[in-house]
């Protein structure tokens, strides 16, 4: 077996988290399930948000899970990549907006 921190088969074992703490594990999965239910947002919209966040969080399990979830919902590649760009834009924006802090600092320190 390859020595690696991430094993795709581990995703299937996620549910076993409850085995070491039934109460907290169950509460988490109840919450998780409830979050993704159809509400003011559709389950489809939530799936796309999850896909984008899965990438910004760089969680391989989540990426696998929500790519498949999207395909099952008939979400197209075009929709998926646009969702990703939203995530990527916020990520890069978050980096760049800190540039204002840098500029402030430079302006303060420089004569």
């Amino acid at each position: 077996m390859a020595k690696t921190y991430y094993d795709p088969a581990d995703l299937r074992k996620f549910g076993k988290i409850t085995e070491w703490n039934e109460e907290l594990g169950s509460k988490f999965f109840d919450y998780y399930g409830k979050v993704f239910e159809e509400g003011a947002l559709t389950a489809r919209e939530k799936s796309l948000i999850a896909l984008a966040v899965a990438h910004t969080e760089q969680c391989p399990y989540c990426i696998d899970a929500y790519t498949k979830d999207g395909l099952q919902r008939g979400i197209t590649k075009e929709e998926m990549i646009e969702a990703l760009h939203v995530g990527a834009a916020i990520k890069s924006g978050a980096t760049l907006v800190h540039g204002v802090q840098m500029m402030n600092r430079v302006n303060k320190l420089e004569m």
Partner: protein
Amino acid sequence: MIVSFCKNDYKSLIPMNIGILHNLSTALEMTNQLNTIMSTKSLHKRESDLANANRQLELLSNGIFANGELPTFKDKISETNQFPLTPNKLEILQINLGYMCNQVCEHCHVDAGPDRKEIMTRETMMQCLEVIKKTEAHTLDLTGGAPEMNPEFRWFVEEASKAGIKDFIVRSNLTIIRANKKYYDLPEFFKKHNVHVVSSMPHWTRGKTDKQRGEGVFDKSIKALQELNAVGYGIPNSDLRLDLVYNPSGAFLPGDQASMEKEFKKALKEDFDIQFHNLFAITNLPISRFLDYLIASDNYEDYMYSLVEAYNPDAVSSVMCTNTISVSWDGWLYDCDFNQMLELKVASKVKHISDYNEELLQNRKIIISQHCYGCTAGAGSSCQGTVA
């Protein structure tokens, strides 16, 4: 999606080829050749190992099922005392008029295609008509291949429609209506005999449809649907029933049938002014060309896991084989179309349409294997869509 998965898969083989060939263009050429072979010929024509039903059954019982990693279907339904699986009241007689088809879909469980020559003769059709006249079944379901390609198709539909069956379904792949001038009048023909048309449509976008079913399939299907609408099929409250079948274009399960129906209706209406009645979401069963694809793309184990994880005992009690008899092009009887492709004839004294005896047949035990997980996943799956 299927072709792109396949492409990715073969591309992943390329580095290995490069090592041997030191030639990227040759490797890419091989990729293209592989894709061409995949998309234009049946497994039978390719003399693939998987054209052999026994080999498929062997595969479905080996590996993760043999080593106990996953429970066999028998063990799984035994947990809820549903083994052996036995028929309920017979409702649907499904007749396969032949494996010949104008398309070679990547996922086809029939391994149908233009190179398949097995088609039902008039003699066998006459035996079927005798059964149709006296059966308790309220639905007659003609399938293929493309059933319309059988030269006796129209004669058979005319004769069968006289038998007064309540729901008379023809599973039409849509493109056949545009494939040749001789099929252009099919919408009128269907209408004349009050045929209930059930057609496959894997997605409401061109890309996804063509990848699964072949180049140009989407445009032809759209045109065919518009023609069916034009003669009155699929219009709300119309008696001329037009339902669509959705099956996933890849190694994943269908999403919620009602949500998919909403998406299909909205997109087809907005983009093409097309209407239809219901959408049947059908799970791809791991047999024949879909099994070949799962193995070639290294998705087999994950797919079987998905099916077993989504197992729903409620779906078992109303699974398709409990209310259907499937008849092959040569008159043999099967629990379902999938068992037909796996050459698993009914476990009954009566095995052929010429000896048909409904009472005897209804006392049989249904033959199962691991492919059956495909019909019990999630909301269940049948030729009429979800069951649970």
